[in-house]
């Protein structure tokens, strides 16, 4: 059946089964492929999007349950996003890059909540995002660097 989704500030109608995960509606129906598939069972974080500003795993969120406003990596903006992406650039965080959309979505959400995260805060916010290339040390350094930029 048709579902109305608000994604990146625009309203879209997608005609898919109720149980279709938001992930596949975003990727296959709307053609927004920055959000990735890594596990399908809320274990890896590659599919992280925001609903009403909260990071969620779109692979286990059926379209029928989505009520809020969805933001994907394609529409990420604001000073936290700019700070995170600039830190990612300057530290050359990505390797294969496949997990990085999800990492960035989680990291920006963390900095919006917590301007000065400790290592422990970073562990808690980021441990749902697997990076098989193990770019973790740089992710941590980059989040601290972004936090410093935001401090001004």
């Amino acid at each position, binding site marked *: 059946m048709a579902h109305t989704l608000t994604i990146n500030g625009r309203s879209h109608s997608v005609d898919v089964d109720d149980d279709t995960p938001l992930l596949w509606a975003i990727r296959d129906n709307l053609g927004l492929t920055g959000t990735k598939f890594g*596990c399908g069972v809320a274990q890896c974080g590659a599919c992280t999007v925001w609903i009403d500003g909260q990071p969620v795993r779109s692979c286990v969120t059926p379209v029928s349950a989505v009520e809020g406003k969805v933001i994907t*990596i394609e529409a990420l903006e604001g000073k936290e996003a700019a700070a995170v992406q600039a830190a990612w650039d300057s530290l050359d965080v990505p*390797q294969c890059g496949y997990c990085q959309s999800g990492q960035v979505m989680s990291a920006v959400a963390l900095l919006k909540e917590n301007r000065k995260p400790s290592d422990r805060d970073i562990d808690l916010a980021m441990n749902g995002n697997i990076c098989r290339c193990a770019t973790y040390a740089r992710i941590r350094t980059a989040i601290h660097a972004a936090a410093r930029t935001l401090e001004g």
Partner: protein
Amino acid sequence: MTAHDLTLSRRSLLAGAGGLIIALHLPKAARAQSAGSATFAPNAFIRVAPDHSVTVLVKHIEFGQGPFTGLATLVAEEMDADWGQMRAEHAPADVKLYANLAFGVQGTGGSTAIANSFDQIRKAAATARVMLVQAAAQAWKVPAGEITIEKGVLTHASGKQGRFGDFAEAAAKLPVPENAPLKQPAQFKLIGKEGVVKRLDGADKARGKTKFTIDISAPNMLTVVVARPPRFGGKVASFDATDALKVKGVVDVKQIGSGVAVYAQGMWPAIKGREALKVVWDESEAEKRGSAELVAEYRALARTPGKVAGSHGDAEAALAKAERVIEAEYVFPYLAHAPMEPLDGYLEWNAQGALARFGSQFQTTEHQTIAQILELPPEKVQLETMLAGGSFGRRAQVSQHLAAELAMCAKAIGPNRPVKLVWTREDDLTGGYYRPLFVHRMRGAVKDGKIAGWSTSIVGQSFILGTFFEQMIAKNGLDSTMFEGANELPYEISDFHCEVHATKVGVPTLWWRSVGHTHTAYAVECFMDELLQAAGQDPVAGRLALMGKEPRLAGVLKAVAELAKWTGPDAGNGRARGVGVAESFGTFVAQIAEVSVGEGGEPKVHKVWCAVDCGIAVNPDVIRAQMEGGIGFGLGHALYGELTLDKGKPVQTNFDSYRSLRIHEMPEVEVKIIASTEKPTGVGEPGVPPIGPAVANALARLGQGRPRRLPMVGGIA
């Protein structure tokens, strides 16, 4: 090959592989596919466009290990280009132009990208430079020798200036010179320098803009998932697609060589269609042994004579004389690669030709496989290599099974119907091609503080014997990927013996980041440490005393000891330090890990110091990144990684049970790169081998013993 409906003989592959000529050559006939007549493509590797951009055509697949950045650095160096004008893209599949000089066919592996391309791509760039200078000299009517280039700007003393794009069209008309001079290392401005380049693929990856295979879409395209046999070697007996076809969005269901393919409009209907599909499997020839049975068989085999892979002196006599023989048996599980992007591929075709797009790691053979299955002449089949979300060996397919399955899916649905084949994570983890399960049985003795005899017996599967790669890799029927690092030690031991047993098991296996060293370094470095401990020797000094003939390995060990301010294994505060060293793929790495026993009794690795000697360090930051990544990858698997088979069926099906290292488990890493003028060697794999034994050796000093069975945490087999 297990379940394909094709038989690719070694002969047909060899015949099609362009004669397997291994020689350094700069293809002149072929020039990089140009984007227009004003583009200058002096050879197959470089394209200079009127907008001044310099595009490097990279024949090695980029899946994170950095060849795009590495090769672009080499080109920018020789051309004195500005980093901002550099671009990189994958070269098309073409064995005549783009063979890996180490293999004779186009492919990536063995950490060869920089080693292979170092001279070749610099020559290509130096040639381009000479031609651009010549074109400028003609335009300005000045001697070429008076023109200099800095940051992409050509300058003559008269004040004339121009950029590459200004001379691209004229340069393209010039003859290609032979023997363009290369820079001397003292002239390098980019190679080996810190902070002068950024990864070319980094910015898009941080913004979700990079297109991977899974992101491809095309009009009329179908997404395909395949139901494959639950046990390796199983076959389709029959299937009933009635319910599958009722799922909204499912378009068709077809039997193919590897199973039953479900074609749908999108991934979710494909997955649901597969769930609704009923398949009866014929398991009469399937492998039904589990990990526990295999380990028991291997342990018994390790006590029988095998094939000799290395020997000197008389180890048996030395051990017979010894007062005390120390024995250790190490058991290594099957491991999945689990690249973050699961296997996938895109293919469109009709009678006129085909276009395949995927993260192809062995382009030459995959190209042939696709052409053969589609019954098209190879020249009508295009293969475009996509950026891939990791590989760790998984895409380096000896059997070509992904390319074959992709072509079978496309063929079964018929022409003019593009398909995108996607493996789910469950498909990936239960789909085989694992790092083989291994058992190492070691015996050694110590006398007067010296190692007085070392004997080892290695049991496991070979993924090389009986395949296309046997003639490239195996010698005398022995597959070196099974025992590399264990049949010759870097340590001087007068009485040494190494035997190997290649087992026949119906579980498909494959190389996995650092290949044989994934297990040999663990067994050798743990056992060495155990013998040194028994001899009352310091882990660093004791190793160094035996490394007289290995100056570069000794060099990294000394460097890492200095970096970590090594004073011995005890680090105080309930922490201990352990050492691991290994040479792999011509690169030397030593690591020291500082470890404690953490929550739930699990090892907690706080910090890892790492020294690496990879010859000339082209991109120091990429090298550091690969050491960090290799350490994380090696550590995650040593701690948690296990793919268990229960009566032949894979037990771990997703990341909930195939535990992957997470951010809070990643240690701090400090890397020291040894300055060197030796030829550059690879860094994608060599960071992996030392970390497991370094952690184990630290645990031993914490009174935990060296884990003899991996993974260290959990473990079902």
